[in-house]
């Protein structure tokens, strides 16, 4: 079973076309294995990205280097999934 320990979900509030271009460039970085929950499409919509633990520092450095502000909406995905799983097991009982 795939685990997501240390994976985070980052939210970027896009401010400009330049931000959009930089975020789109991230989509092509295959080695980061990013999972875009909300893609960079307009300045009106935020961008949500699930970032594997192994890519976290690179991704955060990239965003900081380009002064793109972001927040962490899920600190550790596996914790949230463990809670979900525990709840499902309780329900089943």
């Amino acid at each position, binding site marked *: 079973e795939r685990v997501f320990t240390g994976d985070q979900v980052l939210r970027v509030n896009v401010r400009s076309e330049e931000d959009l271009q930089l975020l789109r460039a991230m989509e092509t970085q295959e080695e980061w294995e990013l999972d875009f929950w909300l893609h960079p499409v307009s300045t009106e919509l935020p961008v949500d990205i699930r970032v594997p633990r192994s890519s976290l520092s690179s991704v955060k450095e990239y965003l900081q280097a380009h002064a793109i502000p972001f927040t962490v909406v899920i600190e550790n*995905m596996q914790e949230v*999934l463990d809670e979900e799983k525990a*709840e499902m097991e309780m329900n089943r009982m």
Partner: protein
Amino acid sequence: QERSTRSFNFGAYHPLETIYSWMDTLVAQYPQLVTKEEIGRSYENRPMYVLKFSTGGTKRPAIWIDTGIHAREWVSQATGVWTANKIASEYTTDASLTSLLNTMDIYMLILTNPDGYAYTHTNDRMWRKTRSRTSGSACRGVDPNRNWDAGFGGPGASKSPCSDSYHGPSAHSEIEVKNVVNLIKSHGNFKSFISVHAYSQLLMYPYGYSCRAVPHQQELDSIGRVAVEKLAVLYGTKYKVGSICNIIYQASGGSIDWSYDVGIKYSFAFELRDTGRFGFILPANQIIPTASETWQALKYIMGYVRDHPY
């Protein structure tokens, strides 16, 4: 096994087998209204069941609702279960729904991507696609909402089998998509096609494969705007309304583009909650609020379809 729909926990996420078993319970409880029909099998040979809500007649004008074409969007399948129960239990008590079902049928496909859904429970909670194999690639799965014969292979779909938005080798290559296409075509009298996704709170109409306006853009837009007003009454949840291309991004091969292009005018896609705080792991305590508010919008759209035959 669940013995009654009253003992079923609609506020919880359930595995595929539990939902399939619950369908039998629903049919047993409302035999005059609900039937379960197998429309085909998935790539991994799981049955695909639609729930048909009908008070009689043959090939009456009908409304299609599918949930969970993207496996990990769990609140959409859970909303489908709640909604099916709502339709069955409120027939004869809800005047609008009753008048609808006296003239039209509703078809619901709750597990539109059964292999993917099972996979999210056993192997990878974040899986989105089908589980089909692609020759020459180690990566599995096709995005079933890029696989319809509507601008297939165009912008907003990937040709890489490893991508989450891989369009597949050809239009309708995915048996899960083909099964739906066959049913809709052989029936021939669907008037509305509604696909339910999650998240980000959007109500969309065609097109996704093109950014040009569809001929019924104004009508679809105004239906959508009223529907999201109704939805917001319960909890104030804010939705955006627009064409797929204009409010999310250009995406080819989508189901509602196909349905619209085959003549089903009232084609819509929902993106249910949430706001991004939980994404695809929306806590189970939000299932019923999500389903309840969505029901307000669905009822409005379905009532509109009933009152505007074409």
